[in-house]
């Protein structure tokens, strides 16, 4: 199968269909990524902007990497940052508290054991870069190295941030309690 890098190369040579094939490969993953972070409605609005931004910046793609998904996550993250910045000042929404809004699979669960809101709360307390690395690894199944690619940082930095994030989570009393209950 033609690699993502080869499709981008073909696109740069003027083959528009190659780029469409590229986004067809990754649209579900990127759509889910956006949904987790900004909710489905905004994700549906942003997806096209992500493709346009990726198309416009494809000349910067490092074709040494055959797999483009981490790069697309990075493009999507930039779009989401712009989206967050554009929200009204009176509605400041930290990125982690808007996680997956519009989809609350545990809404019917007794609030006393609302694990989801506990986790959201703890994630919101992480440093943004810690949170980005953590969620790219936990939700998008990226390796730490690929998460680093998506975020444009050295792999060592991403490993450190992931370690910090995991430590912060483990030591948070709420998370510790959840883990204790889960592992009884």
């Amino acid at each position, binding site marked *: 199968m033609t690699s993502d890098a080869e499709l981008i190369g073909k696109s740069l040579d003027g083959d528009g*269909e190659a780029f469409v094939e590229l986004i067809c490969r990754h649209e579900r993953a990127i759509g889910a990524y956006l949904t987790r972070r900004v909710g489905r409605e905004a994700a549906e609005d942003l997806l096209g902007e992500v*493709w346009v931004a990726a198309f416009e910046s494809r000349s910067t793609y490092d074709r040494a990497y055959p797999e483009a998904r981490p790069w697309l996550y990075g493009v999507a993250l930039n779009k989401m940052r712009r989206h967050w910045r554009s929200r009204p000042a009176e509605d400041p929404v930290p990125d982690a508290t808007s996680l*997956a809004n519009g*989809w609350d699979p545990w809404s019917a669960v007794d609030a006393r054991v609302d694990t989801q809101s506990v986790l959201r709360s703890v994630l919101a307390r992480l440093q943004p870069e810690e949170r980005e690395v953590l969620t790219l690894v936990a939700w998008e199944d990226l390796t730490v190295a690929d998460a680093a690619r998506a975020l444009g940082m050295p792999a060592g930095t991403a490993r450190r941030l992931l370690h910090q994030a995991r430590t912060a989570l483990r030591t948070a009393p709420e998370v510790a309690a959840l883990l204790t209950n889960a592992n009884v």
Partner: protein
Amino acid sequence: MIMDEMDLVGQLKEVPPLRPEAYERARTMLGTAMAQTGTMRVAAPARKEKPGWVRNFRLGLMGKVGIGAVGAAAVAAVVVSVGTSGVSPAPSSGTTAEAPPVGSKLVSLAADVKATDGTLPGDASLVIRNRTAPDGKPYITYNLYTDKGAEYVSETKAELSAAVAHDDNLADPVDAKEIAAARDAAKGDLNKARQDMVNAVPNGWGLGLGPAEAQAAWDKSEAERVRILKMKGVADAQPRPRPTGKGMDGYINNSLWVNSLNALTRGAANAQVRAGVLRLISTIPDVTVEETTSDGQAALALTAGPAIFGGTGGQVLTINAKTGLPISSVAKPGPGEKPMPADTYKSARVTVADIKAGKF
């Protein structure tokens, strides 16, 4: 197995898929951007396999087909002769429109289907749609349309039950408008229903308005389009003249076809919706009907010709010749395009309670 903090965070991972229309819209936006570069070889404006609006999704045709001859004064609504069906003027606000081929197989079938309409079992329709993804693998979606207007979509049976349980309702107001237009078409006011079906999706054509109002609607729509394009950095974006004549007919017929198929997909198990959709499609001059068979069952192949799709390609909808139930849909490639695999449908009446309980 010991759960750690990563496992806990992973529990927040599950989200519903974006609606299929959202992927189409995103591809369309990309196609527009690519076309604006003027340097890309793109067989289709929006996606590799076919323009989004060729399929039975709700996407406008605006900006995707060339505009025909422009006549500044040629925007008067036209009364169209429609033969002996008792159907009153067609809603086209273009300069011309052709008479619906009343008495066609579709109209006959619509009458038969409507005659079978009765109390339906269950309180929802389940449509299992099987497509082929770009990587060649089957892509199945489970679509539940309740009689109350809710819509749940998933990629697995289990997810559909969960979506119902958590009321992840994806219904769009447009869906209800299309279903209502189809029902109205079955009742007899075909021209009003035709206009409502086209207008179910907002457009700038001013269908059903007088000449001045129609032009004003178009101007407003174009101003908004230009505003958005300029926000995207297209500095020289200009409003386009309102299409007329066959150009306008192409827009309207495309919208009528796409929206009708959308209603048929959603209301497949409802005989009145099927009958209405058949009547609506019978008014599109560029749709031909042929008798065929599909898996041994008598079927009709409804072929929407290139005129409906900007002059290239087409789409074939195959329906059961006795019930009007959709069997499959396949986009016909234009010159130089690859053949497309078919979408196939299975429809059934069900109860929401059974779906929620996983009994299906």
